[in-house]
């Protein structure tokens, strides 16, 4: 463990992050909010803390080892969750406790989109903007951003990058150099955001709402500037724009990169994960629509159609925007949608959940066992596309799945033990772990009613989901700390 190297990078990252407190000040100036002082103090505090970390070891030079990468990433996300909550704590509006502030910041950064704040419409614009911005930064991963803009992270950057980006096969770099890869990802991310913002704006949102929602849509976050979320705009056009961009953001960014570089759509057509992702979301949308229409939840077919599609995509990609109270929809729909969030987005996207590729591999592995019963002597590789996946990867996917399920069960039990009812606790943990946002039962609209201890557990769940379990859990094993 190279404590000094870790400390140095952590300090640098914190100082870098502190600058993200400045845009909200600008917003505050424009809208004449009273939040300039809290944001400025948060900026100073974060910057100084980073400085205190960095100054004593600023001249220390050593590459990060694989292990150090985990520590940096986890520490950074934790510290970021805490320092990101400073504006909420310092600002008079919203007047929420420290626990709630941390929950809100963590939910923003991990792109969960679960909120404890009610009465969003009355909040200062700068606070609203800040929440959206948190999601946007967390979406592609703030460390990937740091790797893109801080070339000195160098080879250590690879260790960080791997600990942060989602998906089971992380060795596939888009370009030979890590900095270039990170830059490419952020360019794509930025272009998607700009396109989304313009589309929203063109469809009738105000400039502020368009920007804010573009942030949370492309990050697959789910925060909104209104209590009614997307439902506030009551516009089918806006909802369909959101659907398109959520779908795009949930696709592996490597595909976007290849398509953009080759100026063709063929990378999408040939990708197994993309096809599965499309099929799952399409069928979910179809089932939702038909079921909604059949149960007469909405009186007309078009209405059922756009609510069904929007909600299926929003929950399926783990964004968590709502246009209707989906948790009060009839029968099996809420449960089906919540279960879909376990599948989540594609690897290397901004979506949450277990990632489509893992589910595909699990299914194929299951099919393989069945085939083995039929042909006991057959060699049956697990194939993705036309390539066999090495058993090592399949094993790690199984390991991931088992830990995911176990963590989910344990945290749900803990939450239930704090006095929440079963539907609430199970759905809250699912919604947080999958970085979805709205759950069922008492947490359908917001998390204000959850007790303090429960919120800390959920914070942990969100981080666990965002860092894909292994990165966080590895720090909790004794073997990791043994010299």
């Amino acid at each position, binding site marked *: 463990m190279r404590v000094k190297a870790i400390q140095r990078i952590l300090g640098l990252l914190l100082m870098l992050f502190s600058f993200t407190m400045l845009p909200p000040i600008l917003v505050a100036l424009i809208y004449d909010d009273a939040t300039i002082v809290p944001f400025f103090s948060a900026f100073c505090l974060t910057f100084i803390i980073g400085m205190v970390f960095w100054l004593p070891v600023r001249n220390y030079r050593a590459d990060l080892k*694989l292990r150090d990468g985990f520590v940096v990433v986890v520490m950074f996300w934790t510290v970021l969750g805490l320092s990101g909550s400073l504006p909420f704590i310092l600002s008079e509006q919203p007047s929420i406790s420290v626990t709630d502030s941390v929950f809100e910041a963590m939910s923003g950064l991990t792109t969960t989109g679960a909120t404890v704040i009610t009465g969003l419409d009355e909040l200062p614009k700068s606070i609203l903007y800040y929440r959206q911005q948190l999601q946007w930064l967390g979406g592609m991963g703030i460390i990937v951003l740091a790797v893109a803009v801080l070339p000195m992270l160098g080879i250590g950057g*690879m260790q960080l990058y791997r600990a942060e980006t989602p998906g089971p096969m992380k060795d596939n770099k888009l*370009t*030979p150099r890590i900095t270039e890869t990170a830059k490419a990802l952020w360019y794509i991310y930025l272009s998607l955001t700009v396109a989304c913002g313009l589309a929203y704006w063109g469809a009738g949102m105000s400039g502020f709402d368009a920007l804010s929602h573009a942030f949370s849509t492309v990050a697959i976050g789910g925060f909104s500037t209104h209590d009614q979320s997307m439902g506030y705009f009551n516009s089918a056009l806006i909802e369909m724009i959101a659907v398109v961009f959520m779908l795009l953001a949930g696709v592996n960014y490597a595909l976007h990169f290849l398509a953009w570089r080759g100026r063709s759509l063929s990378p999408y057509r040939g990708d197994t994960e993309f096809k599965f992702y499309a099929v799952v979301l399409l069928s979910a949308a179809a089932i939702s629509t038909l079921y909604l229409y059949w149960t007469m939840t909405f009186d007309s077919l078009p209405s059922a159609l756009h609510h069904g599609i929007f909600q299926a995509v929003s929950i399926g990609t783990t964004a968590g925007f709502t246009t209707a109270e989906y948790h009060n929809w009839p029968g099996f729909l809420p449960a089906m949608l919540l279960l879909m969030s376990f599948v989540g987005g594609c690897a290397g996207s901004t979506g949450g959940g277990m990632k489509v590729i893992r589910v595909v591999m699990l299914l194929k592995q299951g099919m393989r066992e069945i085939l083995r019963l039929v042909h006991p002597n057959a060699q049956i590789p697990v194939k993705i596309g036309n390539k066999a996946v090495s058993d090592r990867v399949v094993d790690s996917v199984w390991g991931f799945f088992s830990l995911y399920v176990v963590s989910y069960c344990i945290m749900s039990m803990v939450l239930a033990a704090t006095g929440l009812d079963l539907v609430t606790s199970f759905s809250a943990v699912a919604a947080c772990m999958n970085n979805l946002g709205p759950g069922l039962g008492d947490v359908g609209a917001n998390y204000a009613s959850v007790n303090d201890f429960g919120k800390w557990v959920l914070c942990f769940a969100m981080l666990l989901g965002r860092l894909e379990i292994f990165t966080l859990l590895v720090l909790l094993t004794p073997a990791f700390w043994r010299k």
Partner: protein
Amino acid sequence: MKIIILGAGQVGSSVAANLASEANDITIVDVDVELLRELQDRLDIRTVVGEASYPDVLLRAGAEDAEMILAVTNSDETNMVACQIAYSLFRTPTKIARVRARDYLGYPGLFRPESIPIDVMISPEKVIIEYVQKLIAHPGALQVLDFAGGLAQLVAVKAYYGGPLVGEPLKRLPEHMPSVQTRVAAIFRKGYPIIPEGDTVIEADDEVFFIAASKDIRSVMGEMRRLDKPNKRIVIAGGGNIGKGLAQALENDYNVKLIDHNFNRSKKISEEMNSAIVLHGDAADEELLVEENIESTDVFCAVTNDDEANILSAMLAKRLGARKVMSLINRASYVDLVESGDIDIAISPHQAMIGSLLTHVRRGDVVMVHSLRRGAAEAIEAIAHGDESSSKVVGRAIEDIALPAGTTIGAIVRNDEVIIAHHDTRIEAGDHVILFLVDKQKIEVVERLFQVDITFL
């Protein structure tokens, strides 16, 4: 620069490590997933798994916009086909391939754009043989590097007590040798570089790099240490490609013995030798070495393909009385380990080879690059082009050139004449300028110095 390296063996991976630290886009191709994973963990490069000569694999490795392809798989044929495909399908500008088999090398017409388009052929064995040959020709030198086709040489020696100049400042060098022109390019003391100035005092155990015309090398070396007697009796351990080639290159000028442990191999080699004696036996066999008068051997040179065997047999030979022992060592960590001990010179094959590759990676008109001290330092021969207005070096005195810290201009070769650099020496167009960089990080600045402005064409 976008570079594709085919083959993640010892050469491929050490080249990748060397180039990746210099803001090059490196993609490395190999069939061995484990090897690639290990490299990927260590270096900031991209890896592609697959047969290096398949067009599809090359395409995945980004051959479409690669500027250089370096084929160093262990198969000559794969290397050649890969270069052919890169040329035919992707028009890759620079194609470098390793070709080992002598049969291919005998036909110069073979490797031309209309037949097998390889721009540069590298043969590690040949490079090492020449390297060792030069070391044997200059007893006492740690490294001998050629510039301008051998007119000027950069030599590394260890200063010893008893050398006339040891303990004296560099500015007294001309007083010691009025007729000889030389320049000390760098001094490494306990592994750290010192930029030599007039007042710098050479201490015992310093590693001194100096540049001089080839004919003057011996007299300069005499200033740093007592001169070793010229080498006469050489023992080579290992009859592989390197050992055999080395014996053939040396047998006419020296008294050469070659030891190989494989009976058939030693028999076959003996048939190809004129005067060298081929011995069948174990190079680490004490009795064999004593029997063959190891105590009066000038140089014992262990060049088997096994690092450990090389190190141990060289140490044994030293113990038994060989004057100088050299050992071929592939593993970088071993080099540091043994060089301070019994083994006089550790020959690192990749180090010897990487220079010839770097020559093609460097921007500007660079004719020769020698990589030193495990790639940390570099000696470069670059040609100055342009005129006073378009070039940053031509027409300027050396003291007026904005060299980065840690860089010295050692010598200039003008019309086959070696001019040792002084602060007021002016550089003319067409000069071969020999530079020494203590810190490779500064290479970009030097490259820019020798690039001519776009307006000059």
